């Protein structure tokens, strides 16, 4: 004797669940992370480890408090992904507590306090990044120059040592590690440009610095391309739609071109904006976060394009050199509005005037 089980149709499923989607995104991050390791040292791997464990532990704690099915929620891999995205956004040698505070903030405040996966209004990784950036500006801007340009080279063990104690095993501080062959502390290309511009130099003068190596940022360009590869994989795997990344990049390029045409000595070229900073990474991995992005195709294009525009505007006139996180969070707030006004026309309905 057995019961016939009953259920509502459809009885078929394509077999790709939330966990699978999140895992694919995490795998697609690998090329970019490898590039980061190659150019900037092992820091990002350790950060990833810290962030993912902190995020998952925070998620477990909160889910247990909320008396939900912990195992099933952890297996959707969303906490791990949020941790990973935060890890690749923060400076590789940022102290461990930065990573932990960021991850816990992302999961507890930004995600779970809003109701958990699917209910959060903001992208958890980016909200946490912004929180860290405004709370701990010093640590959060201590980016390393590419290893090819630095005086000191450091090993995996040095990276671990620095993250947990603030100094390498030989006693060098992060500040010293950041020094170039000429002994001057180096910053990211965008950072460097911002500083130079504020001091009255032109863009052309600013990009003569070593890190630009002509007109590209060393390391940064390659990392951006590596993330681009991961992003293309995501589109091919139909995990994300092309609308957001493409419209975001085009939006940024157009805005940058207009500014560049107006005054090429004050505003960087579109190419410079494209391959420096986290524009590419943000376009494919951050802005496409399904929960906090627009959901209609038209809406996605508007959402992406506006993020692109915001990025360039903030880079041009704002206080922060890289603006992806701010732009994404700003547009996250506009998502309900965008979705409401971009409802597609349903079959059999006339276009509303």
């Amino acid at each position, binding site marked *: 004797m*057995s*019961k*016939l*089980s*009953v*259920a*509502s*149709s*459809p*009885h*078929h*499923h*394509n*077999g*790709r*669940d*939330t966990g*699978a*989607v999140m895992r694919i995104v995490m795998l697609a991050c690998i090329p970019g992370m490898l590039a980061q390791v190659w150019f900037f040292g092992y820091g990002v791997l350790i950060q990833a480890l810290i962030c993912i464990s902190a995020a998952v532990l925070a998620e477990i704690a909160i889910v247990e408090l909320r008396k939900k*099915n912990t195992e*099933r*929620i952890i297996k*959707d891999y*969303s906490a791990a992904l949020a941790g990973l995205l935060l890890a690749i956004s923060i400076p590789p040698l940022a102290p461990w507590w930065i990573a932990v505070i960021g991850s816990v903030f992302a999961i507890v405040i930004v995600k779970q306090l809003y109701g*958990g*996966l*699917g*209910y959060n209004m903001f992208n958890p990784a980016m909200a946490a990044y912004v929180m860290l950036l405004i709370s701990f500006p010093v640590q959060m801007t201590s980016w390393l120059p590419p290893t090819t340009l630095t005086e000191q080279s450091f090993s995996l063990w040095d990276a671990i040592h620095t993250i947990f104690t603030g100094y390498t095993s030989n006693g060098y501080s992060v500040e010293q590690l950041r020094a170039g062959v000429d002994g001057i502390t180096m910053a990211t290309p965008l950072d460097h440009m911002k500083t130079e511009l504020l001091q009255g130099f032109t863009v052309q003068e600013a990009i003569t610095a070593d890190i630009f190596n002509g007109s590209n940022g060393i390391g940064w360009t390659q990392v951006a391309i590596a993330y681009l590869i991961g992003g293309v994989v995501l589109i091919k795997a139909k995990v994300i*739609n092309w609308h957001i990344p493409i419209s975001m990049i085009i939006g940024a390029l157009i805005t940058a071109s207009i500014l560049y045409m107006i005054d090429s000595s004050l505003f960087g070229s579109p190419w410079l904006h494209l391959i420096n900073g986290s524009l590419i990474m943000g376009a494919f991995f951050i802005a496409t976060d*399904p*929960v906090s*992005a627009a*959901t*209609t*195709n038209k809406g996605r294009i508007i959402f992406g394009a506006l993020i692109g525009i915001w990025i360039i505007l903030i880079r041009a006139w704002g206080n922060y050199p890289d603006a992806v996180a701010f732009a994404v969070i700003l547009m996250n707030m506009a998502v309900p509005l965008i*979705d409401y006004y971009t*409802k*597609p*026309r*349903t*079959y*059999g*309905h006339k276009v509303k005037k």
Partner: protein
Amino acid sequence: MFADFDLVMEKLATKNLWDFPGGVHPHGYKTLSNTSPIANVSLPEKLYIPVKQHIGVDSELIVNVGDYVKAGQALTQSHSPFAVPIHASSSGKVVDISNHVAAHASGLSEKTVVIELDGLDAQYELHPLLDYTKYEKTDIVEAICQAGISGMGGAGFPTHLKSNSNKPVEFLIINGVECEPYISADDRLMREHAWQIRQGIDVLVHLLAPKQVIIAVEDNKPDALETMSIACQQQENYQVVSIPTKYPAGGEKQLIQVLTSREVPSNGLPIDVGCLMYNVGTCFAIADAIIEGKPLTKRVVTLTGKALNKPQNVWALIGTPVSHLLKHAEYSPTEQTYPRIIMGGPMMGFTLSSVQVPVVKTTNCLLSPSEGELPNIEDERACIRCSACADACPVSLLPQQMFWYSKAKEYETAEEYNLFDCIECGACAYVCPSEIPLVHYYRIAKSEISQQKIEKEKAEKAKIRFETRNDRLLKEKKAREEKHRLAAEARQQAMKSDTNAKDKIAAALARAKAKKAAQHADADTSVVPADTKVDDKKAKIAAAIARASAKKAAAAKKTTQNTSENAPTSTNVNAETPEVKAKNNESESAEDKKKAKIAAAIARAKAKKAKAKETKNNDE
């Protein structure tokens, strides 16, 4: 943008068709069942023929239990144009007309005629309209109706209603798409009976005079495409079109969009855009009905799924229980941990709760997947708003929003998102990474909304009735008071004005007294038996009341838990005695009856008191 006839013809000629948005590409699994010819099944012992198998109104039964019926004999009739009759699928005796589990997702019972077959399969007389072009069109439509044909693609809309259109038909579309995975019934039918399908189309062409006939077949059925092309090659305005395989291309609205780019307006019908669509199975049945005179008593059913050892297509009599077909296809229960039988395809079919469910006119498939073949039902996760569902939706809805509002029971907003345009194809739930049964939520929301509408109407009616009643009671009360006032006034008036009033009253009293005395005298002699009769009835009523009170007391006691130990016995005894007494008294004298009445009254009172006590205890 409305593609006119010429543009559509141009596109058809270049084989460059339109597309519909969304859609999914599930694996077909068609080869499981479409490799062998349609087989015949042995006669089952009994047929269960549901009285209503179509959308529309009920019809009347014209057979009774015990009647002998022959194959093809009508079991119901109706004068309503929205009803189609049902027929006995084989010969035998009607053994029962009662509720039997129906071919519906709810597993509820519906009125069903049960026929015990005699195995002779004796045929009822046939009335073919062989040379149908010589008949009036209304006669042909009537014949289609009397053959009991309703849409065999799934919805079950009476075919004769569609065929009776007054509006001009530009495209007659024959739907051989069969886009759901697993199902191959139409595929086999087209391969084996293309000629008869064409004959059915010819009948429809004669009725509707369309400008163009399009026979649409998905490109994953090359054999069917070929046989249909051969069958239709003589006819100039028939065109067999191969359309790309995509689910749900076989949906009526989607197919019209693919072939003509026209959209059926919301709340409209295909005829509003000059199209009419028939399933190939329906065409086959029409040919059967007109040329051979046979009513719809059998259909092709795909038996498939890896839990069946011999998946195949069969000719199944309408009314055959599913268990009989499963036996034929050698169902092996060991293949399933959670047994599942799906009637219809995996995307839109429904699970059966009983294998006694009969095959009906819309049953195109019985699917019994083995363990792991189709995913098991899992708990849903939170919606991550990935909008994969919106990308898959063939009618450009926003399933994630509709889900949100349906789940929150904000039905008005859900309706704003065009909930009722959902065709329930299941593409959204198929792709949902959170495994949310989206369509299930829409169905609940839809049924709740229609229920709420009915209730609103009912509430309005109840309000009017309540107010009318209150008005009436008020009016009656006023009238009564008015009458009393008038009577009192009149009395006073009479007292004052008429000096003889007192005499008159005295006289009236005397008259009344005399009358009463006379009556009493009569009663003494003749009315006695009547009186006892009345008493008898009264006693019965009293007994009934006592019974009821006792019951109430008992019920009250049941709910009381803390006092259940001491109280019940005494009241029960008290309550039962008068009942016994009342029964005995029926044969005894009138005096005893009086006693019984008193006893009953006492019992009643006691029971009431007991009840009051109980409830009081309850409160404490």
